[in-house]
């Protein structure tokens, strides 16, 4: 690294280099400019409440993106993420409704300990992921197809679930106080009069764990090698099937955790909870440089990707831009980010 930077310093600042520097960081530059413009249009954008809002939303969407990123590193994807979040959100919420509430789905269950519910949610997510991973690894099906199937299956399970017990298809709400305070409460000091919810801390913890798994463990290195060249991994003695299942399973556990958080964050859970979460997560990964080419991706990139997407949504709303236009801008940014990303892999002839 030091050798590299020395070489860089030795180069002169010519127009070509400035241009490539600008292009390679174009997304961040544009975001910064956009942020400044929005801040000028609406001063509230730089207020403590708005900043805390952006951070909280980023934290809410980050775990699912971290999970899906693993699937993308394997040159795959995961379309079942949203439904997995929905299912685990409904299950978490139904297990943690206020005792005595008239609409309680399972009146016979008392107040379950929070850690048990977290484990249940993550466990269900992991099983869904393992199911995906098994079909991908064993039958060599493309993850797009496997997870396209899985998300439909999950939707039926979800629809059946919300009709079980006393619920009868209603939104699952009236959540237990312990649940809400665990997720949305705060043990951190207030910043500018704004509370930072606990789920920000959880997101930071999960990010650290995933970073460790990706960069420091045999499993992480095997995952990148597998994404880079499956045959190379196989002839080097890597258990390809087990690694694939584990990657999808880990992603599933992340969706499960997201479901647990969303159950309380949204507060009123229906069969449509989690819908299209996978698309936001995939978009964030792509913006953050997790390449569909496989074997490439960084945790820092994913954080930036999720942050940028949230920044767009919140910023555009605050700038008073028509809601309908937001999808156009989001779509444009995804295409732009991918085109920039591909530049790195194109070899000019």
């Amino acid at each position: 690294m030091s050798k590299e930077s020395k070489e860089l310093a030795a180069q002169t600042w010519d127009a070509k280099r400035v241009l490539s520097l600008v292009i390679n960081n174009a997304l961040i530059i544009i975001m910064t400019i956009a942020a400044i413009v929005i801040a000028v249009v609406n001063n509230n954008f730089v207020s403590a409440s708005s900043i805390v809002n952006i951070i909280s939303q980023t934290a809410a969407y980050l775990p699912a993106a971290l999970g899906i990123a693993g699937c993308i590193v394997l040159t795959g994807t995961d379309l079942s993420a949203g439904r997995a979040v929905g299912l685990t959100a409904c299950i978490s919420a139904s297990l943690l409704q206020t005792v005595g509430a008239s609409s309680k789905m399972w009146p016979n269950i008392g107040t379950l300990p929070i850690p048990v519910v977290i484990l249940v949610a993550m466990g269900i997510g992991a099983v869904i992921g393992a199911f995906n991973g098994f079909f991908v690894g064993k039958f060599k099906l493309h993850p797009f197809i496997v997870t396209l199937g899985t998300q439909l299956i999950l939707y039926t399970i979800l629809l059946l679930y919300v009709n079980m017990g006393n619920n009868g298809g209603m939104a699952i709400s009236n959540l237990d106080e312990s649940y809400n305070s665990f997720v949305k409460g705060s043990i951190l000091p207030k910043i500018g009069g704004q509370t930072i919810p606990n789920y920000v801390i959880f997101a930071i913890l999960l990010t650290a764990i995933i970073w460790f798994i990706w960069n420091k463990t045999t499993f992480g290195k095997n995952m990148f090698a597998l994404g880079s060249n499956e045959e190379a991994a196989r002839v080097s003695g890597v258990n390809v099937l087990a690694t694939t299942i584990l990657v999808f399973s880990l992603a599933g556990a992340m969706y499960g955790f997201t479901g647990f958080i969303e159950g309380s964050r949204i507060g009123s859970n229906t069969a449509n909870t989690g819908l299209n979460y996978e698309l936001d997560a995939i978009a964030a990964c792509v913006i953050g440089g997790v390449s569909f080419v496989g074997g490439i991706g960084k945790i820092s990139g994913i954080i930036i990707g999720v942050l940028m997407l949230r920044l767009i949504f919140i910023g555009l709303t605050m700038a008073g831009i028509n809601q309908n236009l937001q999808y156009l801008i989001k779509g444009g940014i995804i295409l732009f980010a991918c085109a920039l990303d591909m530049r790195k892999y194109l070899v000019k002839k």
Partner: protein
Amino acid sequence: MEQPALLEMRHISKEFPGVKALDDVSLTVRPGTVHALMGENGAGKSTLMKCLFGIYHKDGGEIVLDGKTVDFRSSKEALENGVAMVHQELNQALTRSVQDNLWLGRYPTVGGLMVSEKIMSQRTKEVFRELEVTVDPKTIMSTMPVSQRQMVEIAKAVSYDSKIIVFDEPTSSLTETEVEHLFRIINMLRDRGCGIIYISHKMEEILRISDEVTIMRDGQWVATRPAAELTMDEIIRLMVGRELTSRFPPKSNQQGDVILEVQHMSGRYTRLKEASFQLRKGEILGIAGLDGSGRTEVLENLFGVMTREGGTIKLHGREIANRTPQEAIKNGFALLTEERRATGIFGIRNIRENTVIANLKNYLISMRVGGLKSFCLSDKKMKADTDWSIKAMHIKTPSQNTQIRSLSGGNQQKVIIGRWLLTKPEILLLDEPTRGIDVGAKYEIYQLIIDLANEGKGIIMVSSEMPELLGVCDRILVMSGGQLAGEVNAAETSQEEILTLAAKYV
């Protein structure tokens, strides 16, 4: 003095649907020897090795390693039991670093879970020091030249401390100095008492490095002899199963006027710095040079695949641009690319589609609707032309509807040559026309090239096999470091002269 065998493969057989890939093949490797395995493509060498390495499961026979009967179910098991392999195709995780690749599948860990980068980089350095490899362990694989990646692959196989190491065509992408380096490594392993299995098509190499040679043909064992008793002609005879009177057909082409004149051609993004030359009608012009000397770049810049920086191309005295392959084809050029599988064939499509693809507009039904040409293709014409190609090129195929990937390399190459001939080219650019092709089929390709020259086509042929250039070409251009280093007359020159020129600007 007869030592007990280190590895014995007895009566191995393996069947794929419809093909008997291995039929009662035996191979014995003694410790401290290099055992060469030879045979034409499709003779079953790689299949035999894959059975040993656990990639394929043999149908019959027995493998005895160090006195114990073994039957590996996976590569992992083979590696753990002291059998390592340098694979023919570079199987590497290109987005990862050298050391990540070297220890893939057996990362040194702390507490069984956490990978220790420190131990990993330490061990990498030890391995590289011992093998005299000078590569930074932290380099990302994709940024290194192919030859260095090959050396990493070799270092990896050696680092397993195996008793048996299989080298499957290890020198195909190595330069001369690196081949010497590899031979030093192999000699070192031999002195250590390892058994080496060495697969190669390069006979000079085989005769130099190996102690024993086993020859296979059509999935069967043909002969095992001490290398000292074999000659090149003898090996060819055993491999082909018939006497090849000579490796090259007699030359009969006559040269006419200059048709192509290239001046100061250079590439914008590629390492071609300067090339100027002429080509005559009916002439076979060879281009020699080391890997990376700009041989392929001459052809690809000429054909418009690569972007030119400067220079002029004159066809019959008229300047042409050839900015894109479409333009080049219109101007009567044809390019047979270097990597047949990657850029030549459409593997899962059939022979007919592979034959007509460069020439589709000639098969449009000539029916005019409101002044526009129709956009329907004539199946009849396409079938007729494909039939012509199969006959004229002597392509061995069950039918036109056969997937091209199921043909042998030589037949695939003939399909592609047929494809280009249908565009009625004046100038044929052939990049490694016989790479990965059997000895017997090579002769047919040479004959085809000479016939084409006889018909008055101008041919430029790039090859890394010097005897081939000397045997087929009229003149040979020698590239070195991206520049034209010289031009020699094929009838009067020697390999030594060409090699000297090839090293001129290195």
